């Protein structure tokens, strides 16, 4: 059962991305209105906007937090062909209450190498250093590194990979294992089904210091809108969620190898664990919980659906949540059980709930 509450974001156009920081205590949103807002939990456990600034000259597609070890850093990417790195400046102590409530973000750098719409930007897992990848609609995937983590205005282009189709999303493999080479998954929203697989996996080779394509997932030919590796949490395999016209869950099993006898030539084993078209429309965004056990997906139907695997690794829907208060038509075939109100601003319908957690054996 979920309790819903609203944050009055006051964005003037579509919100394209919301991102929590590492600890889940700060929330950044970005919108087509070219601005980014940062919300913090205040003393009363309410989300309060502490920063709101214009970041780009076009729609801001994605916003991403760096690991807090590097500071309070945000990366944004935009339709205006640039990506930007922002850092929060801690206000001068003893200033007015105004500045105490509002934090100040400064642009540390602008990454302008792309000649087209920058569609996604993500910081690498912390153990790889201060590294970020961005991808653009011209098929470019660029990996930048800040050689000096104290100097956020200097980013060197580590590598540029060019794909033959527009790239819409990317995801870093979060695995900590030294047996897993750094991996990057990239999805394309090319609408041409005939152009083949839309998800590409790149691996970093420590010996050649290059990223190279390890695998193309040929079973996914529809445009991909979002892609997300599940938190690895010690698994020997990787779980990849893909938002296309349906939700797909792919299991990538690295070649079995001992720590002693590495055989880099062997292939990843790609298995499709699940495929759901319950949204009956384009799926736009997916997100994993921190244990990598529940996948949340949101689609054009306005619903949020949650997926979970049981102990037999069969995935199924465990909850459907509807955000907007416009009501669910009976044709939707979902029975309304109970209305959860949260103030007068919006109504929520509980459309499903996690059944008895005891029946869900693994978390």
């Amino acid at each position, binding site marked *: 059962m979920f*309790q819903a509450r609203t944050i009055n974001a006051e964005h003037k156009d579509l919100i394209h991305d919301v991102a929590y920081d590492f600890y889940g205590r700060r929330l950044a949103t970005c919108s087509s209105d070219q601005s980014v807002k940062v919300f913090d939990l205040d003393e009363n456990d309410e989300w309060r906007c502490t920063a709101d600034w214009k970041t780009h000259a076009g729609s801001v597609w994605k916003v991403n937090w760096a690991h807090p070890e590097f500071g309070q850093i945000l990366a944004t990417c935009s339709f205006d062909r640039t990506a930007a790195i922002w850092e929060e400046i801690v206000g001068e102590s003893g200033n007015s209450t105004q500045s105490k409530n509002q934090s100040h973000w400064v642009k540390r750098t602008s990454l302008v190498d792309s000649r087209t719409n920058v569609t996604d930007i993500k910081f690498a897992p912390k153990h790889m250093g201060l590294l970020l990848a961005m991808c653009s609609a011209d098929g470019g995937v660029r990996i930048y590194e800040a050689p000096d983590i104290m100097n956020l205005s200097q980013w060197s282009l580590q590598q540029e990979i060019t794909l033959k189709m527009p790239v819409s999303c990317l995801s870093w493999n979060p695995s900590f294992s030294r047996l897993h080479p750094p991996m990057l998954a990239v999805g394309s929203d090319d609408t041409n089904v005939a152009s083949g697989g839309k998800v590409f996996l790149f691996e970093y080779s420590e010996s050649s210091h290059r990223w190279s394509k390890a695998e193309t997932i040929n079973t996914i030919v529809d445009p991909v809108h979002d892609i997300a590796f599940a938190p690895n949490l010690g698994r020997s395999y990787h779980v990849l969620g893909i938002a296309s016209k349906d939700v797909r869950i792919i299991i990538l099993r690295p070649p079995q190898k001992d720590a002693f006898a590495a055989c880099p030539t062997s292939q990843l084993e790609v298995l499709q664990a699940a495929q759901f078209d319950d949204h009956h429309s384009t799926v736009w965004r997916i997100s994993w919980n921190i244990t990598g056990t529940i996948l949340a997906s949101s689609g054009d139907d306005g619903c949020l659906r949650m997926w979970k695997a049981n*102990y037999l690794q069969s995935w199924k829907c465990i909850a459907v949540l509807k955000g907007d208060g416009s009501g669910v038509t009976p044709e939707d075939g979902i029975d309304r059980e109970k209305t959860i109100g949260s103030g007068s601003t919006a109504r929520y319908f509980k459309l499903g709930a996690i059944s008895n957690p005891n029946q869900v054996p693994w978390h």
Partner: protein
Amino acid sequence: MMQHMTLMQEGPINTLALNRDCNKVVVTGRNVFKVCEIKDTGFVERDNIRTGKNSNLNFSCNDASWNPVDEQWLATAATNGAVVLWNIQKSIKLKQETVYNDHKRTVNKVTFHGSEQNMLLSGSQDGTMKYFDIRMKAAVMTFVSNAESVRDVQFNPHQCFSFAAVSENGTVQLWDLRRQDRCEKQFTAHSGPVFACDWHPENKTWLATAGRDRAVKVWDLGYRPVLEHTVTTMASVGRIKWRPQRMYHIASCALVIDSVIHVWDVRRPYIPHASFNDHKDITTGIAWRGSPDVLLSTSKDSYLIQHVIADAERPMEKANPICVTYNSKGSLTLASVDRISKKNKHPTLPRKPKSESEDYPAVRCSIYVFENVKPTPAQVFRDCAQNYWLQTTTGKSLSEICDHNAVVAANAGRLQVATIWRVVKLLFGFSGLEFAPTSAVASVGSSRPVPVNKEESEPGDSGKDASSRASTRHQSGNVAFPTQQTGQQSEPLVNGSGSNNSNSAPTSNSNERGVSDTSGGVSEEAESEVEDIDSQIMLSHIASGSHFNTSDFFFGDAEADVLNDFGGTSDSVQGSKISGETDQQQLQQQQQQSSQMDWILPCEAFQLRHEIKDRSPPPEHFTSHCFAGTRIEAQMIEVEDTTSALLCLPGSSSSLGTTCWSGVSNAVEMVYHMAEEGDVQTAVTLILVLGDRIRHLLNEAAVEHWILAYIDCLSRCRLWNTAALVVKLSQCESVQLRFDVYPTHCNLCSRALQRRGWLCDSCKTITNTCSLCHLVVRGLYVWCRGCSHGGHLLHIREWFARNTDCPTGCGHVCEFD
């Protein structure tokens, strides 16, 4: 049907102009001056005006305008400041009619009046606008703007004598043709130069302007100019044109950077309604071809292109209207557009240009945070992480820890994990049981050159505090089986008791080497035969239910022998011997329980994974000799596993199974299973609690991976203390190096502190004493990051309530957050 068409010219094109019927287009540039006819299938070149050798600067144009009333007249704005009138119906090659050299500098814009065929207006870089009557040979009127240069002039299509001019200082001027002395209205529209303006074709008071501030602004010029809409684009806007028959649509192209033509809905000012991305270079001219669906454009890439709106890219369609994210506390956030009326499901995403509606609603987005009322996995994780006991050094015995952790898991609703803890308790927690494998493998230890004499007394200690000892040892291979001598002595006993079953050697192939080393006379073939018989016996025993007695008998027997043996070897074992004996009965019960427990355990808890096969280290340093009881027990469990149809790796499992008490292998399987399931918490906690009991059977890289993953999760939950404890107990050097090492420096001499954090070797003083009371600070130490002086929180707070500089007198003005 209109279609996409292109025509390449010799050089960059600066502008284009359409005739009234929109079937001819003139394209001009520095080296291009052509009239083309637009047919359904493509462009056809009619006249190349720039012919012959007599081309001069009059032929290179910034702008062109086609007389909308009389099609023979064409006016161009030349870069040399001339306004040139052309009669394109002249049959001779040189079609030039009149050259007006009135402007002193480059002419930026020429335009014919919409209905008066003789009226021509020009705007120039020299800051003036001139009105020409094409029947005259010179300008009729000059309008002087107060700006440096005029970038665009446009006749008001709704008022005969009115025109608008925009200039580089950001102002818009509205002039009446009949008043030369001053403009009617003037206002500042942009911060920076204004490059273009366009009157709305229908709405009489609307004027759109565009400038270097990357904005397209729509003004209502009623009584007072009111800014109606602002479209912010990503580059300086060079040209704008309202889309015919569409109230709110306007096309724009950029002056720099961007070669894309965007069609905006001014009410949706952030995402273009449609985009044409066909040009390779800056787009220089755009014109709607009379209809809202066809757009002509020219570019510096030398192409003239006819675009059809149906082919346009729709950036809106690629923009996600909804997004979702999880946070580490397990609450979900959904941001979605407030919409979805029953009639029109996707008002924000017009899929077909045919159905694009003029009235789409304002977009409003809401963010919903869904917080789980029931405990989410994340909260369960948090609870367990906080409450689990991880270490065995706190005086708690393993079984107490297991009990506690089982309760924690059960309270968190993880009944299966709770069961695992109980099983672990049964497998390892019982002190007496720890002896059995220890001594059993100790007999194996005789084949290894391990000098463990000084550790002889440890088994005795382990009765009280076995696990703490275990965790202090670091020989991963043999830590649990340290007694060489006792092993040797107990060997005959073991063999003797095992002889009833006529087997004293393991059967696994991987152990063969060890067997031949130690047990000598028994051949492998014989052993495996014996083994077969034995397993049959065991199966029948299990079937008849009589095996418990047998195993317990042997087990108990061996146990007693071992204990006696210990007693003979070391005095310190006495205590544990007693405890072992008094627990004898209980031990047997436990034994049975554990066996039964194994039977009733759910399959998945013991599901074997492939990884085990490859990851288990070669088991050669385990047992070559097993005493019978343990071996039988191992057999028993092996059979169970087979019957549960989950045993897929007989090789590894039997090698582990025959090693000693197969609980170890089961625990290892459990750990691997939990990790594969993503339950790194249980896996890591098991590893830490069991420590060296199972550590040597686990792949170090995998363990490091799990621990790192667990620490990451803990730090996401801000459970720093637990994370630090995990690092401390991890015994994993790479992990500890990554998290545990913080170089510290003495705050007096600034040298690195070598040995410990509170004593400086070089200045021989205790660091970090309180600057005020000069005592060693225990508990919270607060210090200034500037001068590194500090002390007790209370003292420092008192001091800085009254002072601003450092209490040591170092002169630093200390800062505390």
